[in-house]
């Protein structure tokens, strides 16, 4: 394994779910949860996947962990292709990638103590001890006292429990940690603490993170690169500072605009505001999925759109953005 080999490489990954209508069981709709997504994560790097509900960011994380089986595409973990591996064959590789879930209270089995749950994941370690002292050491690394090992999840606050979840994820010394909205279930004053801990751990251990979130502040604090998803497709991807200083895709602009609730006006509304609600495209439609909600939509948007590179590391799936027609940089991005 060379030093420059990416920790994770995903190519054209797809996963659909079938939703059966209750009234007409023969009417099965395929919902493209992840539709042709590609990304790369290097060592010590954090890639944030940003999107709202239905974007596919949670599904993407679960595909990387093989909690779901991908329909097509390629996933390479530490250079090894894993998408076609059986669960049994993947088991020895599980120590390289772990997950932190959104709601800490439901991510621990209420029947066991925190220490027992951590030890369960610790069993993935090849070598090294798997005893109580090591649990204490892990807890210490995330800022928790050793006594937490003997507590049940119910007895612990949200922020502390999320730290414990982090300790559990780190137990087998993984190279990659997938985090699914790690702070959205926590109080505002605790969120910053957990994020700061994530950053420190990354620096100390050279961890890579795949972070799914809808919160742009989280992105700003810990992410090196951002991937913006909508209805399963990547809409824009760029290094964090570039995305915040010069967002291009209308959806990204809409997200920034929606976040700054106080600074809106009629004129800005017409340019940036994403209207309506999420709706899945009819089968057979191959154009931009934001049509119908996008303030800049035109007839040409109904044609299939490709990801276009507009600057080093900056890609966007919108012909108007690629042509510079979306006024990037004005929608309160620098807030």
């Amino acid at each position, binding site marked *: 394994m060379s030093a420059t080999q990416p920790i994770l490489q995903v190519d054209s990954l797809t996963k659909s779910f079938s939703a059966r209508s209750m009234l007409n069981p023969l009417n099965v709709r395929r919902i493209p949860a992840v539709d042709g997504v590609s990304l790369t994560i290097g060592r010590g790097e954090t890639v944030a996947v940003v999107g709202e*509900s239905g974007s596919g960011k949670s599904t993407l994380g*679960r595909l990387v*962990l093989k*909690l779901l089986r991908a329909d097509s595409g390629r996933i390479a973990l530490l250079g090894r292709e894993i998408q076609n591996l059986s669960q049994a064959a993947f*088991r020895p590789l*599980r*120590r390289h990638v*772990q*997950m932190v*879930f*959104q*709601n*800490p*209270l*439901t*991510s*621990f*089995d*209420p*029947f066991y*103590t925190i*220490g*027992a*749950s951590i030890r*369960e*994941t610790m*069993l*993935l370690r090849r070598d090294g001890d798997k005893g109580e002292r090591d649990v204490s050491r892990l807890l210490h690394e995330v800022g928790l006292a050793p*006594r937490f090992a*003997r*507590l*049940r999840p*119910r*007895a*612990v*606050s*949200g922020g*502390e*429990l999320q730290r414990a979840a982090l300790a*559990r994820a780190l137990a087998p010394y993984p190279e990659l940690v997938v985090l699914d*909205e790690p702070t*959205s*279930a*926590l*109080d505002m004053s605790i969120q910053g603490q957990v994020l700061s801990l994530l950053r420190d751990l990354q620096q100390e251990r050279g961890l890579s993170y795949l972070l799914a979130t*809808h919160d742009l502040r989280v992105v700003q604090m810990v992410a090196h690169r951002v991937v913006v998803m909508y209805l399963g497709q990547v809409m824009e991807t760029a290094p964090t500072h570039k995305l915040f200083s010069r967002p291009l895709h209308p959806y990204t602009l809409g997200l920034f605009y929606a976040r700054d609730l106080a600074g809106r006006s009629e004129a800005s509304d017409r340019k940036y505001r994403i209207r309506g609600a999420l709706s899945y495209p009819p089968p057979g439609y191959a154009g931009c999925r934001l049509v119908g909600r996008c303030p800049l939509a035109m007839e040409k948007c109904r044609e299939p759109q490709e990801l276009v590179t507009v600057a080093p590391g900056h890609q966007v799936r919108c012909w108007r953005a690629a042509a510079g027609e979306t006024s990037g940089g004005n929608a309160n991005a620098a807030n």
Partner: protein
Amino acid sequence: MQADIVNVAQLPPELPPIQPAGGQVAQIWAQRRHLFNGYWAVIGLFVVVAILAPILAPYDPVRSDLPNRLLPPSWQHWFGTDVYGMDIYSRVLWATRTDFSIALIGVLLAVVVGVPLGALSGYLGGLADDALSRVSEMIQAIPLFLFALMVFAALGNSSRVLVGVVALVNAPIFLKLTRSVVLPLRNADFIAAARCAGLRPITVVIKHILPNALAPVSSQFSISCAYAIQITAGLSFLGFGVPIPYPEWGSMIQEGASRIIYGEWWTSVFPGLAVLIAVLGFGGIGRQVHKMYTTS
């Protein structure tokens, strides 16, 4: 989708943790002792009686004494005597053994068969789930006594077959119950975490799914025992299961039923009371167990 904001924990930070590291049972015992009350005492009494019946019964329960038949309750025969002169009190005591052992063994069999199948059904889903669900629904759809008749006709009339009937009738209940508990658990984050830790599906089921299904299953156990007593008594009343001289509440009620119009009430009433109290006792325990696991 965001989860609701998690509330700050209720445990004061100064107190040392009071939960023992293992067994949830120990914790529950410490906190819920007040729920072990009269119902448990009643059933406990029955169990003691069942064990000590040979010592407690003053008469031989199957010894016929025709000159002394149909005597009303008196100091010599506390519950009176029946049509064959057998002491009803002794028979009621001995019948406790019969009824309780059939009920408990039958329900235990139902649990041993129903719970794992239900867990598998819920966890695996798909064809296995469909097949198991349909089979248990088929069993449940047949009226109880008709079903019992079929089984007795096929396998013969004995107490063993009666235990089998009790088990077969209750197994679908446990299967469906376990399945309904397992279905939402399947998507729980902690199950996903266990899979991330590399646990095999069977380990996940045993280690994470079954313990969390423990609560509803244990309260259902008691209720099923109550049902089982009714089934046993009911089938024996009809002449199935326990053969005639052996003491069993249901057959005793049946023998005495025809005597009631002659004013000889004691032959049916005492075994009937025994059934009533046992069923109520089991039901009460079931509710208490349910309370133990649901209040927190």
